[in-house]
């Protein structure tokens, strides 16, 4: 067993941080996300008062010193709205991303460990989700199950797991051929022991990388749903873009530019973080910049 005294943990953490921060994009993304999370947590203190209240007379003002990012169609400060909107995006990103990772990991582990019919069944279900168009499916589910944040998170989490399942399954299959698993089996270890003491811990790193890699897609999906007007949340980046659709023709570029930029920066940051994690957790890996689709294809 690896000793986990506080000192070795600290040493591990510092060596991890050293290799992680070697990737400057990942470093910058990390600080951006930390700042965003802090701002979202402290939003009430940064912008006291009701930021959602209409401010008559100040509608659609371009960026200025009093409102750095301009005001929206109700005269509200866009910077304040963006900071409050970060809550929605981050909550969905972590909750739906987490759900996706848990379901995908479980499905992949079971498919890889039991093989045979179980494997066939799980992977066929995964294939169905990979074949039918996901955004329309989520649209239908959310529209019918009444649009709210919880349903959005469930819909995204429960439709996005197949990629994760594929990754975990193929890693599990590779692990199952290793000697130490063979020995455990011969010694009569239970399925639960092999699954959770060996298969899972041995892939935690790659699970973490793929979970963070799937978050940009989660953020974009959630933003798309709001943009299409499905989740009538007063403050969210996607819905700000939805509103701006009625106004951009008058030249109110700041009403669409800044919310979209926030979505873009957040998604990109998670991407860079996953890249940094990949390099720091798996030093043998070459620096390869592959998209999610490519990785799915490779694991097919």
């Amino acid at each position, binding site marked *: 067993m690896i000793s986990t005294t506080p000192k070795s943990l600290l040493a591990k953490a510092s060596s991890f941080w050293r290799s992680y921060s070697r990737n400057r994009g990942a470093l910058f993304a990390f600080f951006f996300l930390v700042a965003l999370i802090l701002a979202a947590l402290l939003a009430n203190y940064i912008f006291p008062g009701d930021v959602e209240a209409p401010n008559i007379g100040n509608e659609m003002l371009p960026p200025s010193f009093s409102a750095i990012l301009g005001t929206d169609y109700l005269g509200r400060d866009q910077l304040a709205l963006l900071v409050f909107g970060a809550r929605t995006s981050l909550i969905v990103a972590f909750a739906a991303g987490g759900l996706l990772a848990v379901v995908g990991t479980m499905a992949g582990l079971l498919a890889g460990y039991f093989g045979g019919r179980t494997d066939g069944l799980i992977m066929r279900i995964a294939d169905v989700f990979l*074949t039918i168009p996901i955004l329309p499916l989520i649209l239908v589910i959310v529209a019918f199950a009444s649009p709210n944040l919880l349903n959005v998170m469930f819909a995204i989490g429960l439709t996005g797991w197949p990629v994760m399942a594929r990754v975990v399954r193929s890693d599990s299959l590779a692990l199952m051929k290793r000697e130490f698993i063979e020995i455990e089996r011969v010694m009569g270890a239970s399925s639960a022991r092999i699954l959770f003491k060996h298969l899972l811990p041995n892939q935690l790193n790659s699970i973490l990388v793929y979970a963070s890699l799937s978050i940009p897609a989660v953020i974009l999906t959630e933003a798309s749903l709001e943009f299409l007007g499905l989740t009538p949340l007063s403050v969210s980046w996607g819905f700000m873009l939805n509103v701006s659709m009625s106004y951009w023709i008058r*030249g109110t570029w700041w009403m669409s530019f800044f919310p979209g930029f926030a979505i873009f920066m957040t998604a*990109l940051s998670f991407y860079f973080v996953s890249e940094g994690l990949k390099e720091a957790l798996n030093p043998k890996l070459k620096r390869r910049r592959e998209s999610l*689709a490519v990785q799915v294809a490779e694991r097919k």
Partner: protein
Amino acid sequence: MGFLSYIGKRVLVAVALIVVVGTLNFTILHLAPGGPELVFLNPRITPSARALILRQFGLDKPIQIQYLLYLEGMVTGNWGLSYFYTEPAFDVISSRIPATLLLMVPSLILTVSLGILMGIASVRKPYSFLDRFLSSFAFFFYSMPVFWLGFILLSVFAVYVHVLPAGGMLSITTVGFDVRDYLWHLILPMTALTLINLANFSLLVRSSMIEVLDQNYITTARGKGLPERLVFYRHALRNGLLPTVTMLGLFVGAILTGAILTETVFSWPGLGSLTYASITSRDYPVVLALFFMFSILTIFSNLITDIVYGLLDPRITYD
């Protein structure tokens, strides 16, 4: 086993998938708060009309019969009634298909051809400046919401510079279908849609080519003194592009999703803006029918890619 039985098997899978989607639709419909009655019926109708419609749609029958009737309706084009347009959902949707294809197909062609070129360019000198530039480009656009890119393009080229139309597929003044007017309107939405999908596709070509260039037969070809150009274009390229064919089916799904969002921004009169409109007006029969239509489109294109792949790859065994 012959090629025909391979095709037969793929067709069976496609049919099974369509049944799965139909079942999914049926389940969602019945699990929805209020069930199909509440979802499909206009709340303002009279009780007698309600009873009549319930009988017409078979909603007074037991659930398993309803399910079979539903699947039969899906096959025969009886996809429910749009209560916004007050005509069959199937008709509402079919009238929008051409516009979506007029956006998707040019974008798909452009994505594939540019993606292959970019993938080749970056793989000719791996980890060179060009390669890294193209990879960052892909990274960048992968994280970008396509509707945001659409807004930027519109703000720049339709509002500030005022050189391109601000949306739609044809000018209001145009009578009939004018190809030049259509192309004029196509530029911006096609650019947005293509840039987003190109990112992924070029990376796919790149990684597939890198894998092929690692193979033994490439080393052999080089070892026997073939010129590099010949090795690359004759031996590597052909095999490297094969896996990308299988990915095309998956890409149609992505492009379709992109098209829904792109059409909404550019008020392109296809399935995408219909999706937006029917969500906004709570036209549930059309929302369900749209999902079915999108699924059929992706399942069908997956089927075609499978068949094309079978034709292209001599190694494939048909079983």
